[in-house]
Each structure stands twice: as structure tokens, then as C-alpha cells.
């Protein structure tokens, strides 16, 4: 069983069809499978439903697939950084299903773990609970959410071996591990491709069973969405909080 493919196009060969559902890892531009996205753009496949926390920025990441109008629907938690997205959305060309970020993560994790549905407090009594079953447990109210499973998942990892075992780096991990488990076929792009035994078995984030195909992507300049720094003269370190709202 050869999992290693020479390039993104080869790794996606035979997997793409119009109308399919694709999960794409990453948070903002951090840890996105950009080379695989570019290959999907090049393939011309269309009417895609894409499950991804964000929608990239204009011309970068999933922004590429928006430019070429290959996406029909997004399932995301936050899409604020993309003008082309806003244009298509307001023009009615693009459908969007907003999920709370934790609900989205859990739905994907559930889909991969054979859990068809679960209950969460998140969103109870809000728009996102409309039309969904609710249930009371121990005096609290919960919304039922369904697992998500895609035709294809594309993920980005720092290291991977030829068996498909993956290790992610820092906050580039984000949605990648769950998505790797929640699709008929998962394709991984890795910055460093090594032989089995070179990764420590205790520290593998995604076991190879979840990865059907893997490609090595040359290390290149990664993009930064919000470059924030402090001056070296700063006495007291500045804060670095900052959630999505």
C-alpha cells in the first residue's frame, strides 16, 4: 500500500467530483492545506460544499476556490476576512451555514468517531438551535447536533511518515486532527516526510489509519494574517489575548 504521492494533483487523482463535500483544515491561514487547495482549484471541480472554520482571505487558501466560484456552500464559524466571500454571499451566489466553533469541531470529531449526534449547551435559545431537537438533562437545556462526514478531507501537518502518521506544529494543529478522521478519504500534505520509526509513537497526533494519501510539500514562506509584535524596548510584555468576537 503506497500512500506517498509525488504531488498534489496525483494525490487527488480520482477523488474529485462536482457537488462533493470537502473538509479543509486550518484556522485562519494557520495550518491550511494550501497546496491541496490550489490543486482543487486547478481541477475545476465545482458546486462544492466546504467545511472549514474560516474561508481564507482573498486569493489565499479557500479564497482561491471562492475566486473561481467553485464553492456552493460553506459550513464555518467565522468568515470575516474575505471580501470576495462577502460579495458572493450578499449576492446570493454562496450559501453559508454558521456553526459555533466548538460545535463545528465537535460535529467533525463525532462524524469521525461514529457518533451520529450529541447534545451541547452551546447555542441553546439562539438562532443556531432553530429547527433542531432540544432536550433537558439534569435541569439544563441542550441542543442536538449531528456528526459531520465528508467525501474528502485535506489536512496540513508538520511531519508525516510514509505510513501516514502525522504530527502537527503549535496552533497549526487546530481542526486538522478531527478532519483527518471524518472523511471517506483523507489526503495530507506534510512539511517533512520521514520513514516509519522516525516519529515518536507516543507523540503521533494522527495515526496513519486515517491517512490514505500523503504528499511532501516543500517548506516555503507561510502567510501571516495579523502580524502583531512588540518592540524590544518594551518593559512589560504587552497582552496577547484576542478571541474571534
Amino acid at each position: 500500500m503506497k500512500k506517498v504521492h509525488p504531488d498534489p494533483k496525483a494525490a487527488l487523482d480520482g477523488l474529485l467530483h462536482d457537488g462533493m463535500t470537502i473538509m479543509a483544515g486550518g484556522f485562519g491561514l494557520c495550518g491550511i492545506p494550501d497546496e491541496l487547495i490550489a490543486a482543487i482549484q486547478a481541477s475545476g471541480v465545482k458546486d462544492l460544499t466546504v467545511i472549514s472554520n474560516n474561508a481564507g482571505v482573498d486569493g489565499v487558501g479557500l479564497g482561491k476556490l471562492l475566486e473561481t466560484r467553485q464553492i456552493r456552500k460553506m459550513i464555518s464559524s467565522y468568515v470575516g476576512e474575505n471580501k470576495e466571500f462577502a460579495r458572493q454571499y450578499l449576492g446570493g451566489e454562496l450559501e453559508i451555514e454558521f456553526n459555533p466553533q466548538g460545535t463545528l469541531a465537535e460535529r467533525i470529531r463525532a462524524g469521525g468517531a461514529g457518533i451520529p449526534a450529541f447534545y451541547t449547551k452551546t447555542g441553546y435559545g439562539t438562532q443556531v438551535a432553530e429547527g433542531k431537537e432540544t432536550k433537558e438533562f439534569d435541569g439544563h437545556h441542550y441542543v442536538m447536533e449531528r456528526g459531520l462526514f465528508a467525501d474528502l478531507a485535506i489536512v496540513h501537518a508538520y511531519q508525516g511518515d510514509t505510513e501516514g502518521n502525522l504530527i502537527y506544529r503549535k496552533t497549526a494543529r487546530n481542526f486538522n486532527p478531527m478532519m483527518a478522521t471524518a472523511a471517506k478519504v483523507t489526503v495530507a500534505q506534510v512539511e517533512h516526510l520521514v520513514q516509519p520509526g522516525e516519529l515518536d509513537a507516543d507523540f503521533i497526533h494522527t495515526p496513519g489509519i486515517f491517512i490514505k494519501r500523503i504528499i511532501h510539500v516543500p517548506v516555503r514562506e507561510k502567510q501571516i494574517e495579523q502580524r502583531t509584535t512588540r518592540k524590544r524596548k518594551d518593559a512589560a510584555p504587552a497582552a496577547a489575548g484576542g478571541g474571534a468576537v
Partner: protein
Amino acid sequence: MAWTRDQMAERAAKELQDGFYVNLGIGIPTLVSNYIPDGMTVQLQSENGMLGMGPFPYEGEEDPDLINAGKQTITALPTTSYFSSSDSFGMIRGGHINLSILGAMQVAQNGDLANWMIPGKMVKGMGGAMDLVAGVKKVVVVMEHVAKNKDGSESAKLLKSCDLPLTGTQVVDMVITDLGVFTIDKHGEGGMTLVELADGVTEGEIKAKTEGAFAVALR
């Protein structure tokens, strides 16, 4: 003399306790980390998958693989751990985070919160806000007391009930505005109580600028 943004953040920092795990939203909440008292250990969680968030990096040391939930470059600390988004929100939803400090468009007297969308405007999404307010043990809102409209008029933000789409129902424990501090008995019948006034602000001024009902128990 209403509180400045920094004074609001300083006041919010008084809700921190040693050993707390805290999630800070963008805007004024981010400033709270500047006011963590010396000798107090507080670990900041970033919902994209990190516990133990450090300060912004020095120029030239930005790491694209190390960002916070606001997509800003940050740094790690010796205590830092990284995890997946599902583990991160398991942590949040499971009630393991002690305190969430975040901004708001509207808060109702029963603790309802609206901070993610305005009908008719481009909706960007709720991100992790709905999970945070539903899951974190204590939720503190820091916001301007009133909204300034384009025509120069002002609209109350502390309401009987929110008219914007909700982020969560009965989720807010405390509201810190530029004019004062309110507590909310979100699970009980206690309603909203004004407990502190900003320097030079009167009960009368707050009364005039607050639509929601509140008791007064200044401390």
C-alpha cells in the same frame, strides 16, 4: 468622569484569581492581561488550541504557526500546551475555564447576551463566542455603557431583553461598562444589580442610560 478603556480592563482584572484559566476576547478584554497583579499566576487560553498564551513576539520573531484566536502572532510560555480545536472546546464546554471576559453589543437584565450579528449587516459568524458563554464558569462582559449611533444619538445596551440575535441565554454574570459594574443572577431570580460606580458617575446618570431593570447595592 467615565472609565477609560484601560480603567475598564483594570477593573475586569480584579475578577482574576491566582491559578485561574482565562479566555479573553478581542478589544478591551485583551487589555486585561496588562493588569494581572504581580505574583498572581493566570494562564490564558486561546480557543484555537493553546493554553498558556505569551505576549506578542518581538519584531522578526513572528511564527506563522503560532497565533491566537484573533489570528494575531503570539508567543509561548514554559507552561504552554497545544491541542486540537475539539479538545479546546471540550475544555471550554466542559466548564474547565474559570473566567471568560468578552465584549458585547447588548446584555439583558436576565443575562442574555448578543454580540455576534446585526440583521441586515454582513454576518461574519459567531466564532467561538457561543461556546465560551455557554461553557465557561464565569462570564464577564466589558463594553461601553451605550452605543453611539451614526446620527449622534445614543442607544442603551443594557436592556430588558436583547433585540439583536442572541449569542447565549442567561449566560452573563457581570457587566463592566465605562460607567460602572453590574452583577447578574443569571440562573436565579435576582436580576441585575448595580454594585459599583465609575469615578464621578452618579446613579442618576446610569439610570438614564440603562433600559434594563436593576437593583442598587453599591459596595
